Every structure is written in C-alpha cells, then in structure tokens.
C-alpha cells in the first residue's frame, strides 16, 4: 500500500480547516485547559488527579475529535468519495490522525505547563503521551466507523470515556470485587501508575512495564482500526 506525503498533507490541511471552523468540536480544546487552571493552585492535588486530567484529555479530546472527523465524513459520504480517489487507507488515516496528534500534543503541553509538574523522566513521560495519543485516536477511529452521523459519534465516545478514563476509579473497589483487577491493565491505569512510579524513581526497569503494556494496547487498537476501516471500504 502506497503512502503519499502530498495526499496526507492535503487531507491534513482540509481537516484542519474543517476543524477550526466547526466550533462545536473545536471548543473541546478548551476543556482540559480549564480543568488544568482549576487544579493549578490546588496544593493537595496528587499524581492521581493529574493522571485523571491527562486520561480525560485523551478520551475527551483525542478520541472525540477523531471520532467526529470520521463520522462527519461518513455522514456526508465524502469518505466514500475519498475511497475512490488514489488516496490509500494509510493516507486517509495518517492524515486525519496527524491533525488530532498535533492538536492533542499542543493541548497537553499547555496542560503540563499550567500544572507545573515536572516529570522525573521526561523521555518516559513523552513516550507515554505519544503512545496514548496514538491509541486513543485509534479508539476514536473505531468509534467514528461505528457511528453513522456526527451525533452518534459524539455519544459513542462516552463508553470510551467511562471505560478508559474511569478504569483507575474502578480499581478503588478492587478489595470488594477482585475481578476488577483486570482494570489495572487498562492504558489509563498504567498511565497513572507510570506517573506514580516516576515520582520515586526514574529507573528504566520500573517505567518499562507500564510503557510496554501501553505499547501493546497501541499496536492492537491501531491494527483493529485499520482492519475495520478496510472492511468498511469493501462494504461501501
């Protein structure tokens, strides 16, 4: 399958313009920043709160925007039209994800700056963020492909929000319901664990485990989203 930078760029620019002119979606950028401002002066806020804010941003911003971008194209049948151009699956998905990636990175950078927390191991922190953005945009793609309209897409993000962002809270009940132990393997729980671990140590061995689990999630979700996209391509 061929990848053309020119086509990716064209899709990126087109989506950027559509995104900035669609205020219903672009306003989402403000939410994490407002939350960060609220938590900012809060001395008692711990790593768990920060972790929640990051996870919330991944679901509410990364997944939401990606799902909406894909669903809107489906709703207007422009995705089908794009499938008939020489643009390959990778061109379309990379072009779209690149936009979401840039927006999420920018917002996360602002959030990190506002919170003023300095991670001990910058490298591990960056990798965790990059992996998360990719895996949540893959989740967004899956949501977008499942929904037929923009409205459906904005609702379909809520299961993601509850399941992924809420997983660390589910862990609080693990003493009562041992089965909830599986939630520990959710990428969001691992992200918080990583932030916790990094407070005490920055040893490679300690940070490697959460990163590897997140990498596994990223690979699996990316493969699923690409396969689903191609299946849609055949259905149409």
């Amino acid at each position, binding site marked *: 399958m061929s990848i053309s930078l020119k086509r990716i760029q*064209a*899709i990126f620019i*087109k989506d950027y313009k559509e995104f900035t002119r669609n205020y219903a979606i672009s306003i989402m950028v403000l939410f994490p920043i407002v939350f960060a401002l609220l938590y900012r002066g809060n001395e008692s806020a711990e790593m768990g709160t920060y972790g929640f804010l990051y996870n919330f941003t991944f679901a509410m911003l990364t997944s939401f925007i990606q799902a909406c971008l894909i669903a809107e194209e489906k*709703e*207007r*049948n422009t995705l089908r039209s794009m499938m008939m*151009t*020489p*643009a390959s699956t990778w061109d379309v998905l990379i072009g779209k994800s690149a936009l979401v990636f840039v927006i999420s990175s920018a917002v996360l950078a602002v959030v990190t700056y506002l919170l003023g927390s300095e991670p001990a191991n910058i490298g591990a922190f960056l990798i965790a963020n990059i992996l998360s953005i990719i895996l949540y945009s893959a989740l967004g793609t899956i949501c977008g492909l499942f929904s037929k309209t923009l409205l459906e897409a904005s609702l379909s993000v809520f299961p993601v929000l509850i399941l992924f962002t809420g997983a660390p809270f589910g862990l609080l009940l693990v003493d009562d319901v041992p089965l909830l132990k599986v939630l520990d393997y959710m990428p969001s729980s691992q992200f918080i664990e990583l932030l916790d671990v990094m407070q005490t140590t920055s040893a490679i061995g300690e940070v490697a485990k959460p990163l590897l689990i997140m990498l596994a999630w990223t690979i699996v979700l990316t493969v699923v989203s690409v396969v689903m996209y191609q299946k849609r391509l055949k259905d149409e």
Partner: protein
Amino acid sequence: MKFQPVYQNGHLLLPPIEFELTVSQSVGIITDVQRKQLLLNEFKDHSQFYVFRAQQGEYMRLTIEELVTFLVRVSGRSEPVAALLDYFSLKDERKTKVRDLPSSRKMYMTLLRVYFAHQPTLVLEEPYFYLEEQERRQFKRVLDDLSRNKNVLIITSNLEDAIISCDTIYRLDGTGFRQLDIQDSEEDQPGAQEKEEQDQVNIAIQKILTKRNDKVILFDPPEIDFIESLEGSIIVHVGGELYECAMTLTELEHRLLNFGFFRCHRSYIVNLQKVREIITWTKNSYSLRLITGKDAVVPLSRSKLQELKSLLNI
C-alpha cells in the same frame, strides 16, 4: 458491459443487462428507484468505476478554492487550481464557503468530483436532478469534455435528464432492459383501437381525444402544452397533467398544424404559442422551454431548428 439477473423472493428484479459502453458515447439508463440502487451496487470495483451517488455530500466549511485545491492534491493531479476554477466557472465564488452557496451551485460543485476521478468509467446517479438551468449547462459541458476519454453512464429516473447528455438511452423496468428508440412508434399502435378512435375523431374534429383513468377527456388544441411519444404511447401534457391519447404523432401533427403546433423532435409536438425560450445546451443540442407553471422543457432536434426559425421568422 454485462450484468447477471438479480432475483428477490423469486421475483425478477434486475433482468440480464447487456450494453456497450464506449468512449465519447454516453449511455443513459432510465429506471425506478429500487432498480437504480440495485444497479448502482453492481459497480463495486473502485479501480474501474467512479460511482457518483445522488446523496453525495460535501465539505461544507471549506471555500471553493480550498476544496478544489484539496481535490486536485488528493487525486494526485497537477493542474493549476486557478485554471480549473476558470474552467468550472467558479472564479467569482472562489472565496465562498460551500455551505453558503445556493443549493444548485452546491450540487454542481459536488458533481465536479467526477472530474477528478482516475477510473476509466464514470457512473452518475441523477446528475441533473438538483441542478438549475445554468448549472445544468455548465455541468453538461464538463461531462461532455470528460466523455472524450472516459466512459460515462448516467442512471436516472427522468427521460428529460437523460436526453440532455446521453447518446444512447436504455429503459430498465419489470419487463426487461431495452434500448429506448426515441422515435414515435406508429407501427406499435393496436390497429383496431386506432380505427375506432379515428371514427370518433371525425365527429369532434377540432378536439383532441384523450383518456385518463378510463375517462375520455376532450381538449381544445390551444389548451395543450405539448405532446410526447413515450414507449409507444402518446402522452398529452395539459397544464402539467398527463393524458394518454390513442392517435399517432404523425396524425396529431397533421391535425394540429393549423393550430400553431410544431413537430420539434421525433417524439415531441409542441404548442408554439406556449414556447417561451429556445435553450442552447451546446452547438448541437437544444430545448424549448414552455411558459407553463411547471417549467416544462421539450427537446428540439437540430434538424428541426431551421424549420422552427423560419416558422417564427427569426
């Protein structure tokens, strides 16, 4: 081009279809909504067919210029955008967002997606349905240019739309798939009925006798807008309503000659008193627009143009 028959619940929905699709000979298929969808589903191969569906949407928030730039880039072309905007006659609107365009213009812009197709065959569903006159003319020009090196297939439920830009027209319905002979079919008329009608006509010589829902309705010739021959039956249009007539076009032509009627096409007779405008689609195709409320348009053969001009002293 060949298609296998499609059955549903033992019902023959799509009869076996076979037709020739060549460059610079656009083909039109007239059929109903259900068969239209079935037929469109047959063009699955994205490397061979570019399928334009009637419900195709557009990126509403882009401006025309941005959209054309995007289409050029994503289809891997290298034409300068400014020249294309000129060619599409969209130059004045290049800074307008798609959603701010009038609906006919919006549809025209959306239809232009076919221009960027790399597939050898273009399949269009109802391309002219949502277009107004100006856009129809512009799109016909683009499509005619495209058909020089691509196969063009138009699927529509409207004969008038197919006539605009198709060289060969087929009709697909429950009884089969056959080429539409755009001629009046005098031989097809059941002879017995014809004679009977003729006798009646002798009595009410000035009236045109029509039938609708088993009622016989008589019209004064000046009431009639135009008459068309459609698959062997003669349809009289009066004030936007349709009535069937048992006479042949040739007979009608003779009878109506003194009332200012004119045979403008092999299958059309038009009341010249009701003609408002002669529309030129291209050098070789013309239509007559009538003054009736519903914006009726009747095709005008090239060969009849001169005759019409001399009749009207133009």
